[in-house]
Structure formats: C-alpha cells, structure tokens
C-alpha cells in the first residue's frame, strides 16, 4: 500500500485482557519496527524484524509482550494480561533496507488504553 497501516486505531482493554495490534508495512519494505510512545515522550524501541526474522527484541518491556512477522510482511504485536502501565501509543514503522539508514515510514499508531 501507499503507507504503513495499523489497526485498530484505538483499543480499550480491561486490565488482564490480551490484545493484538496489527501492522501492515509498505509493500517490499524489509525492515519493520515497533515502538511504544508514552504521553509526552518520544518513541521507545520495542523490537525489530528483518523480513520474517526478529533480530532484536531487547526493547520489549516484559515477557507479556510478543511480536511476530511470520511471512515477512504483516506483523502483530501481542500483549498478554495487559496492565495499566501498558497504556501508550504503539507505533509501527517500516524501512526499505536493513539498517533504517534512509529513515522510517510510520503508521498512525494504535492508542491502547488499559482500564
């Protein structure tokens, strides 16, 4: 597609509920990144895929967070047993080549609110 698409745009979850956030990157983009953006802060790195391989998941805050990109295109970020501190905007970005040296194209984000 023309841009990076994320769904849902907004998600309200009860504490303890599992959620799944979807990212459709730009077709042909090799790299895919997930970021978490808390209110009033810059995005924080969560995880990085190059095609279907998850090369870095060091930014995932706990083992309740899991990401996959099984066919090297669409990616899903799953959060199990959501907690209030998980409330944030989750951003997906894709890049044409492996190092991101040409910048990233961001999706609109999914705003997750845990109540």
């Amino acid at each position, binding site marked *: 597609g023309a841009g990076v698409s994320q769904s849902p745009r907004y998600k309200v979850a009860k504490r303890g509920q599992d959620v799944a956030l979807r990212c459709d990157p730009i077709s042909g983009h090799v790299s895919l990144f997930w970021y978490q953006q808390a209110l009033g802060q*810059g995005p924080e790195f969560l995880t990085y895929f190059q095609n279907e391989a998850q090369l870095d998941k060091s930014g995932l805050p706990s083992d309740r967070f899991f990401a996959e990109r099984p066919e090297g295109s669409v990616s899903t970020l799953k959060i199990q047993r959501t907690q209030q501190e998980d409330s944030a905007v989750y951003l997906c970005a894709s890049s044409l080549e492996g190092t991101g040296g040409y910048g990233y194209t961001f999706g609109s984000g999914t705003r997750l609110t845990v109540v």
Partner: protein
Amino acid sequence: AQSVSQHNHHVILSEAASLELGCNYSYGGTVNLFWYVQYPGQHLQLLLKYFSGDPLVKGIKGFEAEFIKSKFSFNLRKPSVQWSDTAEYFCAVIYLDSNYQLIWGAGTKLIIKP
C-alpha cells in the same frame, strides 16, 4: 550512552515569529539525523534528514536544519511560523557505527497563537 536532547519541551510563539528548536546528540561516530513532526491526532511524518554533504538541509513546509558537527547539534528552523505548524517535533539520530535504531529526543510541543 547514545542520547538525543531537545532543549525545550514546550514552545509558544505568535504567527510570523521565527522558530528555532534545539537538538543535540551525544558523540558516537557517524550519524544520520532526522526531524519528525507529529500533528495533533496524526502519525509521525519526516520533515527533513541529513546524511552527508551540505550541512544546511531544507525540508518540507519551509523548514530547514543545520548540522554543526563540532557542536553535535542539528537545530530546526523556520523563518516565519504559521498556526498550522502547531505540532510536536522530534529530533532523532541513527548512529551508523552502532546499530539501526532511531534514538529519539523527548520532543518539543510547539503551539502557534493565531
């Protein structure tokens, strides 16, 4: 540690005023530099980027930025702001000798009074 600092968290200006938003990054070798803008309710958009060459780069919507290597700075400027420039502005850096991650500043919220 690699880090990016944006000097002002909030800036309020009147229309037609000149703008300069500061960005400094910590030393870490060769860098690519970016400014992103996030309009209210919208996604992050690239304003401009510097990879090499002329240290004065021009971006969209009349914005420009100057890379000063000796000061580790990449300040964003616009000669005359408009109400529609109200947004949050983020400076970001990729350290090419290190990894692929964008290191982000905390952002500057810019409010333009009509």
